[in-house]
């Protein structure tokens, strides 16, 4: 187990001075997030569910998606996760399943036709 990695509170000004400044901040954020990954996996017991590389992929995808906005929100999110303010199902829902990383292969849903799935949902599907 790595030594606990403390997240230094980086006060992020709302607007960076120029583009290089912004890029530097984004990379710093990514680096901080990846370094906090083992802690996160330990807190939420994600060892069996997902591999760190997949989570990194998820984080980078999120950063790419939000490339056009400033990212203090990303910092807040990271702080929340490391502080155990979120719960397991949040993490799994937002970063694991949301990116299509883990296939939900329940044995009962395998091989079910659309008719049966609609039947279980409601009479009027």
């Amino acid at each position, binding site marked *: 187990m790595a030594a606990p990695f403390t997240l230094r509170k980086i006060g992020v000004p709302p607007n960076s001075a120029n583009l290089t400044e912004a890029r530097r901040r984004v990379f710093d954020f990514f680096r901080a997030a990846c370094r906090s990954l083992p802690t996160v996996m330990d807190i939420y017991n994600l060892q069996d569910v997902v591999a760190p590389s997949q989570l990194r992929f998820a984080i980078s995808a999120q950063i790419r998606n939000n490339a056009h906005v400033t990212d203090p929100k990303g910092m807040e999110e990271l702080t929340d996760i490391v502080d155990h303010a979120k719960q397991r199902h949040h993490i799994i829902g937002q970063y694991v399943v949301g990116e299509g990383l883990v296939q939900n292969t329940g044995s*009962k849903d395998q091989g079910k*036709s*659309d*008719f*049966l799935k609609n*039947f*279980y949902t409601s*009479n*009027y599907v």
Partner: protein
Amino acid sequence: MGVGILASRAIRPASRLLRSQPSNLFLRTIVSKPELQSPEAAAVSQPEPPKNQILPPRNPVGGARVHFTNPEDAIEVFVDGYAVKVPKGFTVLQACEVAGVDIPRFCYHSRLSIAGNCRMCLVEVEKSPKPVASCAMPALPGMKIKTDTPIAKKAREGVMEFLLMNHPLDCPICDQGGECDLQDQSMAFGSDRGRFTEMKRSVVDKNLGPLVKTVMTRCIQCTRCVRFASEVAGVQDLGMLGRGSGEEIGTYVEKLMTSELSGNVIDICPVGALTSKPFAFKARNWELKGTETIDVSDAVGSNIRVDSRGPEVMRIIPRLNEDINEEWISDKTRFSYDGLKRQRLSDPMIRDSDGRFKAVSWRDALAVVGDIIHQVKSDEIVGIAGQLSDAESMMVLKDFVNRMGSDNVWCEGTAVGVDADLRYSYLMNSSISGLENADLFLLVGTQPRVEAAMVNARICKTVRASNAKVAYIGPPADFNYDCKHLGTGPDTLKEIAEGRHPFCSALKNAKNPAIIVGAGLFNRTDKDAILSAVESIAQANNVVRPDWNGLNYLLLYAAQAAALDLGLIQQSAKALESAKFVYLMGADDVDVDKIPKDAFVVYQGHHGDKAVYRANVILPASAFTEKEGTYENTEGFTQQTVPAVPTVGDARDDWKIVRALSEVSGVNLPYNSIEGVRSRIKSVAPNLVHTDEREPAAFGPSLKPECKETMSTTPFKPVVENFYMTNAITRASKIMAQCSAVLLKK
């Protein structure tokens, strides 16, 4: 009810959607001006229209077709300057209807005899000193009828004023508000002010039973209910007592209306004097959504309109269908809707080890059933369809059970040995409307009054119109027409078949004899002998001819005809006793004691009725008001129900449940949509796919092989013990319980 359409069209012509003629250039807005109110204006003669005026074409009222029985006998009359050709016996009112002019009326009804006492239908006829009652006056050739002259308008205003004089100011509390003929016609034809300043009279209310609510103060003495009761229902319960302003409608003695058609007086009454007691104060007619569907309480398939408000059925009203039920429905059809709200199954349930039911999810329930069905041998699987099952679900059930390797799937009411090879042997071959042409009826083992009230109404109509004779073999029962009771059992039938009975001469002399055999006879052990005796009678008396087929079988349940068409027949008598897996699809009349104690019973239905108590798994299904299903009536007429309200709880459609179960059990049925099921039905019984069409039987009795069995001597038993409690819905209904407690003859 009908004239309201005219009246509202007159007031708001643009908002009428149904049946508005596309070329509606000739809108008659009815207006009265002050200068026309004076008596001099009435005496002024109208200017003659120019001789060569081209009048716009007119269609008969309601898009009706005129039937000329004798085309040479057509007369020409002039209605408002428009020439129409009408058959000879038509009245002035009917001639105006052909010309597209709807004349207001209260006492006239097209299916009842003419009374002529309301005087609202007065029209002006040239060369007549007074306006004439158009409902009673026969149309003579060359008559010039004028319906919109000041005289006619003044007459209508006067009649309206008189009617409203003694009519109570009950509109806010009257159930008929919104669909009241008096309201509509007073808006359209009445004057805007009244001159009555005295006290109004009031009348004491009569008790007609738990179905018809009477507020006799509102009665306008049109006598429609009196004529209906004596002519259509055949019971002379109601009459007019007293004279003048003291006239009252009632039963002279303290008598309840016990007739099975008593609910129809509610539709007939133009005002709120006779209303539906279960529907009293429940809803106004404009907040109800009407859905046109079919009734399944008996095998007639009466056309109904289900009025619902949200998820609840508020009332049931008849729809016009000339061939089946005309404009009437039986009390059971009309008032059993409150059974749809009680004892409903809404979740799948599995019986625990302690004997109590536990609600589970669909997944678990189907998984359990799918497991168990693979542990039994194929000939120990039995499927029984109920009396309210639609054709789609019966098709899927039969396919599923057959693919599991078993042939034991049948419908309630079909005993062993009923063969469905030839369709004539279980249908009403002369069709319900064709019964009107018969002049002699022989009823064998059937009481149509309790089994199929609409068929009984048709027989009553025929007896009244053409003085047909009716003879009956069976247990003593009461009929609302003159009926000769020939005997109680197969002995009488044998005598007639051998020609020894005095009735045989009447049979030979009849031009169109009709024999009606009840489906209750299908359950007897000597069924073959009885049916072959009936067929020999038919043969000997020329009952089955190319132009007239009088051999009729009256089925009991709505699902029976479709089941027999699809092939759901019971092959072996011991199938139920040796079953290990029983699938009851709404089957409540099954003798539960016959099911072995170790059999696994699945009940799929919508009410927790009798068979549920033996079930191991309950699968909730939808009732007939909630699903789109195909039903075939006893004459072979295919119709479809339409969903009016959503399903209750977690229930599903019947065919969907069986299809899902088949998938969970690993059986692959080749369809997964209702169109797929229907195309499968088309390959089995294509007449079930042609809705609103009657498919007559192709072959007659000549193909049946000879029968060697002998008849037993046990007399025929009545099939329906309690008219008001015959299926799961009626048994759960509080209104039906009240009726059977109060109205049945002890």
